[in-house]
């Protein structure tokens, strides 16, 4: 197998491409030869320019797809655009999410509902739509980005961790339901990663967390993106229903 371009000929939808892990995924998927629908909430001229640049540089098609994950009408329109496209969807990466830190006793209801809405319900509904397409083609790989907080139940991360645990559980259940239709579904659980999400953490907490990793370093968005490429590719054809911790060993 020539794995220079391990995603050659595949088309992927990646949500949350504007920054952080999603932005790194967009680039890695392009490098490995995939066409990408790059989903963002708001389309800026800079982002459109970046999509064009990546398309040219790697001879793939990067199509910006602009919608608010919590807006049903907008999501429907985005799905219709994908359906009408000449490309078949082979891969869905639900990466978009928001973080929240607060002690359990101090978590307001609105924040709790927002976490569940954006981190769990929105990707759940989006996946329903896209898996419907994948079922027609009889193949596909769904990759949902959760968090080690979903497994480790960290203090101050009850709402965030629970929303990611819900996403992780749903993904594994999905893998059992669609495995025989050729669709795989796996979870990536990043540990501490160099993104905007850690701006809510103090330097002391970051240092302490990093010291607790076996590799003694913070993860980079591209570290996480590499694992997504692997799970999207046929190299992982017998792997489904799994949760991959990409956490430097915690």
């Amino acid at each position: 197998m020539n794995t220079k371009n391990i995603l050659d000929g595949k088309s992927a939808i990646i949500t949350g491409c504007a920054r952080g892990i999603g932005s790194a995924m967009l680039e890695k998927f392009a490098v490995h030869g995939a066409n990408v629908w790059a989903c963002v909430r708001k389309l800026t001229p800079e982002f459109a320019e970046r999509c064009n640049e990546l398309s040219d540089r790697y001879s793939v098609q990067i199509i910006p797809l602009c919608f608010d994950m919590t807006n049903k009408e907008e999501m429907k329109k985005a799905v219709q655009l994908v359906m009408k496209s000449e490309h078949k969807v082979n891969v869905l990466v639900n990466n978009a999410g928001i973080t929240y830190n607060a002690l359990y006793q101090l978590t307001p209801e609105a924040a709790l509902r927002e976490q569940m809405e954006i981190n769990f319900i929105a990707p759940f509904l989006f996946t329903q739509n896209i898996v419907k397409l994948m079922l027609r083609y009889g193949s596909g790989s769904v990759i949902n980005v959760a968090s080690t907080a979903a497994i480790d139940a960290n203090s101050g991360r009850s709402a965030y961790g629970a929303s990611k645990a819900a996403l992780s559980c749903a993904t594994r259940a999905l893998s059992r339901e669609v495995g025989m239709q050729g669709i795989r579904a796996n979870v990536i659980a990043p540990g501490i990663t160099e993104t905007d999400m850690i701006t809510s953490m103090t330097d002391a907490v970051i240092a302490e967390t990093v010291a607790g990793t076996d590799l003694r370093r913070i993860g980079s968005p591209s570290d996480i993106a590499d694992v997504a490429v692997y799970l999207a590719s046929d190299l992982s054809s017998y792997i489904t229903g799994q949760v991959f911790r990409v956490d430097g060993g915690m």
Partner: protein
Amino acid sequence: MLLRGKNAVVTGCLKGIGKKTLETFAEQGANVWACAQYADTDFEKYCVNLSERTGTWIKPVYFDLTDTDAIKAGVKTISSDKLPIDALVNVAGFTKDAIFHMTSMEQLKLIFEVNYFSQILITQYITKLMLRQKKGSVINIASISGLDGSHGQLAYSSSKAALIGATRTMSRELAPHGVRVNAVAPGVIDTDMNAYVPENVLAGHYNNMSIQRMGCSGEVANAILFLASDMSCYMTGQIIRVDGGMK
């Protein structure tokens, strides 16, 4: 190519997952010390052909995992090449199935000798070299039976569980110095180990899977490839199930 210019030690190369790993690694540009239990002319020919086809070097190294002196000599052969070692893949292993009460101490000790003690010994030697380079990736081949238990595999499942514990601890100790340690836990794979499993038992396994078929050794080799490559550079201490999604 995901392993271009890397050098790897792979054990159990005569057949099954080890042989497929050897082939996959060479195709991905890696040079390999291909470790096997005994010298075999067909195997040597195979290595020469693979090496020519892929433009890599493949060096057969022979030792039996029940022979500590032979292991030491084998490792010495490898280290005397004085080349960097980027990956160590411990594939060699075996099983002799028996239910719990029918498992003899002799059998249990033999399986632990091959599947656990010898793996630790090889890894101690090779990672000592990796620590000097401050980089490396160790991949142990465990089994889902080491995680889930398996009827009739008391000795095998416990030896693999022990290897999983060792994998996690080695990660704690070695990863701070740049050496990642992970394991792959294959499910039901099309190797000799499953060649004599009755059809009805296999059907029972398939019913518990999302992807209801036997896995190919190539699919396990591809997971090993991922863990040996820089694509998994932030992963350590992990046990990757390659099992078609077993319940």
